Structure formats: structure tokens, C-alpha cells
């Protein structure tokens, strides 16, 4: 377990910072000045923040004033969901229902369960098909049952575990006529798919720095100016009074550089990763013929899956045994979304897709990114067969 070269196949968890982001961030690490201060140093800091905001707005098809910087994707999701729920309910107490897909990230599901337990919200988790795609008929039926009681709808742009892209245009088409705001968690989609906020028609959208080659600890909620949000974090009134706290100027600068580059290179990168993904899928199927691919079969930009995510079930294996065996050979992947205690729970995403707990526990996610190469995929191909065999033996 010493001196094994690392084969990093966990870019969906976090991806290395790109050079442009490192340079933009380090250029400001030693700067003096609080972006809220009125003097020259403060103005210089504020200028960096505002230029970054404009860069991100340009890249995402939104107005600069619509970008609210946060500490990351989880905070942005919490702000969107709680902030929308509270403001919508304050305007009309009948609005108690929250509709979301059953395959949302925990950063969405947990705040929604919390709102259900503590704030009288009525959570409706909508079904997905066996590939993880939202059942829009179920969404339509749920809205039509009583549109006036829906506080908001939240559906992720693309799933973080299996990579399935959700029908956001359909979601917006169903919600918009009733004036129901739509939030989407686009953390995994950005950089892998064309993401245009205005064109998508959503009201709020979560993005994160470290998933697109930017720094950890910074993200944003893109939210339409007209949308009322109740603040979660109170203080100095930064970020249009919606998210107080002194801005992390270097992180914001690095974030903007990463977003700009990710969007600029998205089409080429998608082409490159799609080919790499096919190579990986072929390799897994060759080495483990009975492995089951979860999600959609090809990475594509049109109603398919993310080009960088490959998710397989390995019948007869515990995913965490397989992860450990691969880790010992320097190959790093994931059993799904990471859990703080490290206790493997069967993935709610796979369960929602109709798999049983055993199938869900037998799964691994390999995710590709900007540093991934054919060499990485080939290294996995070499190691996978023996590891699966051993993991099967361990299951008994």
C-alpha cells in the first residue's frame, strides 16, 4: 500500500483545481481589504469580487446581481430551499407542499426533511424511472392536485451518483404557469453540460467551486432578482442581504476563473470524456461481464447521462469491500455519496430506481474529470477483475 501511483476516478466528489483557478486565487491570497470596506483597499477587494461575479454571470447566462456567493453547494441548496419556502409561506400560508425528485443530493433532501419535521412543510418525493429520470407525469399530477399549495419544486439538473440528466425544461413548463418557483441543483451539471440559467427558466440554481476545478469552500446560488428569499445567515448584509458574511475574495476569484474555463471548454471536454467513458464502460463489461450499468447507457448531452460518471453494480460484492481493495491498488472511486460517519447506507438513488438494498450496496461510482486519461481507465481495467473476485469471496 506504499508508493502506489494514484488513479483518481472520483472527480464527482471533488476535482483538482485548474491552473487558472490556482493563479487567480493565489494572486489575491495576500491582498489586504474587506470587500465591504469603503477605503481604497476595500474597493480593490470589492472590484475583484464584482469582476468575478460578472465573469460567472457571463458564463452562466444570468445577470451579475443574480449571483449570491455562499460557502458551497450545500449552503446554496439550504438557502434556496429554506429561503424560498419561508418567503413563499409568508406570502401565503397555504403554500406548504414541496415537490422534489426522490434522487436529490442529501444537501437538498435533508433540508427538505428538516422543513417537514420543524416547519410544517409537506414533502412529496417524486418517483424516477429505472434509469433515475424524473417521472414528469407524477410531477404534473402532484402540481395539478392543488397548485396553490405548492411552495416550490426542486429537481437536480443531473444526478451526482448515476449521472442521469433530469428534464429541467419539462419541470419548468409544469411549474411556471402556476407561478411556482423551481430550484435546481446544477453542481454536477456545470462543466459537463451546457448550463444557461436564463434559458433554463429556473428561479434558483446551485453551483459549487470545487466540482468545476475551483477552490473548496465556495459556491453560489444563482437566483432571479424578482425572487424573494428569506435569509438564513444574518449579519453585515452582504450579498443583497440574503447571505451575510465577509466574502472570501481569493476563493471567489478562483471560483470565477474555474467556472469561466469549465464553460469555455465544456463542449470539447464532453467529447473527450464521452470517449473515455465508453472506454471505461467497455473495460468494466469485459472484466466483469455480469456487472450492471446504472443510469443511462451512454454519456450524452441530450437527455442522457453526464459524460464523466459511470456507475455499476457488481452482483455478489459489497461496494465497500471493492472500494477498499481498489484503494489498496491506488485506484480511488466511491460507493456513492460520501457519508460523514463512513457507514455505508444503501443509496437512496438506487433504491428510488427500483434496485433492492443488496444491489444498491454492491455499487461503485467511477467519475472522470479534466485530469483523467486512458492510462487511468486502463489501470482500472487491470485491477478490477481480481478485486471483484476477492470481494465476492468475502461476501461468502
Amino acid at each position: 500500500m506504499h508508493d502506489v501511483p494514484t488513479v483518481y476516478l472520483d472527480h464527482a466528489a471533488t476535482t483538482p483545481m485548474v491552473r487558472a483557478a490556482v493563479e487567480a486565487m493565489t494572486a489575491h491570497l495576500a491582498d489586504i481589504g474587506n470587500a465591504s470596506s469603503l477605503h481604497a483597499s476595500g474597493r480593490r477587494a470589492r472590484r475583484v469580487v464584482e469582476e468575478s461575479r460578472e465573469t460567472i454571470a457571463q458564463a452562466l447566462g444570468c445577470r451579475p446581481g443574480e449571483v449570491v456567493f455562499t460557502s458551497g453547494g450545500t449552503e446554496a441548496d439550504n438557502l434556496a430551499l429554506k429561503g424560498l419556502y419561508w418567503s413563499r409561506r409568508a406570502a401565503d400560508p397555504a403554500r406548504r407542499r414541496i415537490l422534489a425528485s426522490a434522487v436529490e443530493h442529501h444537501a437538498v433532501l435533508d433540508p427538505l426533511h428538516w422543513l417537514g419535521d420543524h416547519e410544517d412543510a409537506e414533502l412529496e418525493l417524486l418517483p424516477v424511472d429505472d434509469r433515475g429520470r424524473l417521472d414528469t407525469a407524477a410531477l404534473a399530477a402532484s402540481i395539478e392536485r392543488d397548485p396553490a399549495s405548492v411552495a416550490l419544486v426542486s429537481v437536480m439538473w443531473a444526478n451526482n451518483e448515476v449521472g442521469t440528466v433530469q428534464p429541467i425544461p419539462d419541470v419548468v413548463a409544469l411549474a411556471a404557469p402556476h407561478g411556482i418557483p423551481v430550484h435546481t441543483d446544477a453542481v454536477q451539471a456545470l462543466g459537463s453540460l451546457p448550463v444557461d440559467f436564463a434559458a433554463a427558466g429556473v428561479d434558483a440554481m446551485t453551483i459549487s467551486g470545487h466540482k468545476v476545478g475551483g477552490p473548496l469552500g465556495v459556491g453560489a446560488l444563482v437566483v432571479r432578482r424578482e425572487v424573494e428569499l428569506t435569509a438564513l445567515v444574518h449579519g453585515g448584509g452582504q450579498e443583497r442581504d440574503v447571505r451575510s458574511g465577509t466574502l472570501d475574495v481569493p476563493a471567489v476569484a478562483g471560483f470565477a476563473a474555474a467556472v469561466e474555463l469549465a464553460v469555455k471548454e465544456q463542449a470539447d471536454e464532453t467529447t473527450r470524456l464521452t470517449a473515455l467513458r465508453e472506454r471505461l464502460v467497455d473495460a468494466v463489461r469485459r472484466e466483469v461481464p455480469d456487472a450492471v450499468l446504472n443510469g443511462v447507457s451512454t454519456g450524452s448531452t441530450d437527455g442522457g447521462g453526464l459524460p464523466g460518471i459511470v456507475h455499476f453494480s457488481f452482483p455478489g460484492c459489497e461496494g465497500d469491500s471493492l472500494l477498499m481493495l481498489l484503494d489498496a491498488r491506488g485506484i480511488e472511486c466511491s460507493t456513492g455519496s460520501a457519508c460523514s460517519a463512513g457507514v455505508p447506507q444503501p443509496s437512496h438513488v438506487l433504491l428510488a430506481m427500483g434496485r433492492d438494498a443488496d444491489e444498491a450496496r454492491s455499487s461503485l461510482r467511477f467519475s472522470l474529470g479534466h485530469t483523467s486519461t486512458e492510462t487511468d481507465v486502463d489501470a482500472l481495467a487491470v485491477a478490477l477483475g481480481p478485486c471483484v473476485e476477492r470481494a465476492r469471496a468475502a461476501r461468502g
Partner: protein
Amino acid sequence: MLVVAAMSGGVDSAVAAARAVDAGHEVTGIHLALSRNPQSYRSGARGCCTIEDSNDARRAADVIGIPFYVWDLSDRFHEDVVVDFMDTYAAGQTPNPCLRCNEKIKFAAVLDRALALGFDAVATGHYARLEPTADGGVELHRAVDHGKDQSYVLGVLDDRQLRHSLFPLGDTPKVDVRREAAARGLLVADKPDSHDICFVADGDSTGWLREKLGERAPNQGGRIVDESGEVLGEHEGTYGFTIGQRKGLRIGRPAADGKPRYVLDIEPVSGTVTVGPRERLAVERIRADRPRWCGKPLEHGQDGAVVTVQLRAHGDEHRAVVRMTGSGDQLDISLLDPAYGIAPGQAAVIYQGSRVVGSATIAATERVSA
């Protein structure tokens, strides 16, 4: 060797893992998740008591410089240890869950999984020694630190399990282990020892049992009587009692002779708890089931020799003659001097000198006739 070090988050298992590394083994740290968090989402600062221990174990693994994973054995643990604990109490007996965990989880489920995954052994922070024998086998012995000795709860391990075990702390007093942990930069060096049953979070096992068994007939309660059958009081459930127990009987009036009264007998079906004077606890003979041999079994040549037996965790040794009965699936233990407060459900662990020969579960006792 490729070694799995079971790391609880405490000081002993952390030092054991570090010593396994020093001994030249390639060590992987694992923490056993034994209780499943029933919450559907994380709502509080501390979802469950094991998260803190798991983090301590992870930090220790970082400091030692070994990989670390959590293995989820909560289903097996519930089935083999927690349910056994409840059933044994429900039957009016007194279980030892640590011993059951060693037998069924640490040196069975974990060991089997480790071997299948390509490891050679499991290392734990138990205080016990393994000594090689001339014929290439291995013997289990008491730890050098008799105060900390844990060979009693390992007396259920068979030859195969012992051959794949490492107990790196057996030759060291606890105080030195703490000192070593501090010297190694392990932050758990001064973490308090755990004494309670790990799955009873607040340490109140009677309260825990009341919650689990209170609804279950015939554990709703019963009478406390003396040997003549006179009713002295009422109780909430037999699970609150152990043979030999003196405290917490809550009998209003004192005995006629003014002497303290002890639990003599627990009748789970009627729920009757019988109490009496200490001398009535004296046991001279024990029948024990499910013998397990730590290496070489008690042979017919030794059968009948004087050995010593330990009849509860941290209990005294008693000189005894042990005979196999039936087809070898029961032990007949004759004590040379009477022992007091012997509870069915506990293990009788047999020693020859410092060596653990084996163990069996106490099924019935024969009192010294008055």
C-alpha cells in the same frame, strides 16, 4: 503479514494497531459500525454515539499512517449479540455480550471477511497473550497486567481463530500503554476506559432492558419471595436481577436475622425472584454447555485433573475438576471450594496456570446442601 486492526476509537486498539505496524505488518485500520442510525437524515450535532468513536479511530489511523475504513456489521451485531443479550436476560440468566461479540463478530464475521479479502490476521487491543507452542500451534494466556487481563472474554476463541489473531498489548501494563500512546502522538492517550455495554448508550442496562423487554411476557414483573415462599416485594421484570445481586432489591423490611439478602434464584416464567442469605449462594457444582476449546481441547487424560475456572469477568479463580459429559457437549465442573453468586448465562473459563484451555456457558448450578 497483511493485518486488519480493529480500532474502536479507544487508546488500547490504537496502540495495538501502531505496534502491529512496528512489527513489520502491513496494517489496515477498521472501525466496526455496530449500531445502525435509525434516522432518515442527519438532524443533530451528534447523530449517534459511535460517530465520535469512529472519528477518534480515524484520527489514530491518520497518526499511525495506515488506511482506515468503517465496516458495517450492525445487522450481524444485532442478531448475534444484542438479541442474544435480550433473550438471555429474558430467560432469567446473565449474559456477557463482550464475549459473545468476540465469538461471533470480531473473531468470526470480521475475521472471515478479512481472510476472504486477502488479510492474514486481525489485531485487537485486548489484554491477553498468544504463545507459540512447540508443535507450531498457539496458546492463549492471561495478560501480564492481571488487573486489565481480558483473556476471560477471549475464552470462546478456537484454534483457528487464535492462529489468525494478534494481541499486541498482552505483555504491557495499561499505564505503559497510555504513556506509549502519548509518546506516539495519539490524542486518545487519555481517553477514559470504556466499561459499559457499548450498545446501551447511557449505561443504564436495566432501563434499556425495560424498554426492550418490558412489553414481552413474562417480563412485566413479578414477586420477590424468600425461601419459604413469603412475598417480600414486587419488581418490574426479572431482567433487573442477577444471581448474587444484593443492591437494588428494594425490599421494605429487613430479614429476621438482620443479615443482607441476595438474589438466589430467578424464575423467568412466573417472574418470581427468590432472595436469601449469602450462604445459600454457595455453589459446589456447575453444569455448562457449548464448550469451546482454545487450541488443544481438554483431553481425557487431563479430564479430571485439577484446573482453575473463572466464572465471571474480573472474577476470582476457583480450583475445580472439569469433566466432559455426554458426547463432549457439556462440562461437569466440580469446585473444590464453594463459589458464590454464580449466574447461569455467564461463561466458565478454564485455565491451567496462565493458559486459557477453553470455556463453556454456565447452564445450571448445584448449591451446597444446607
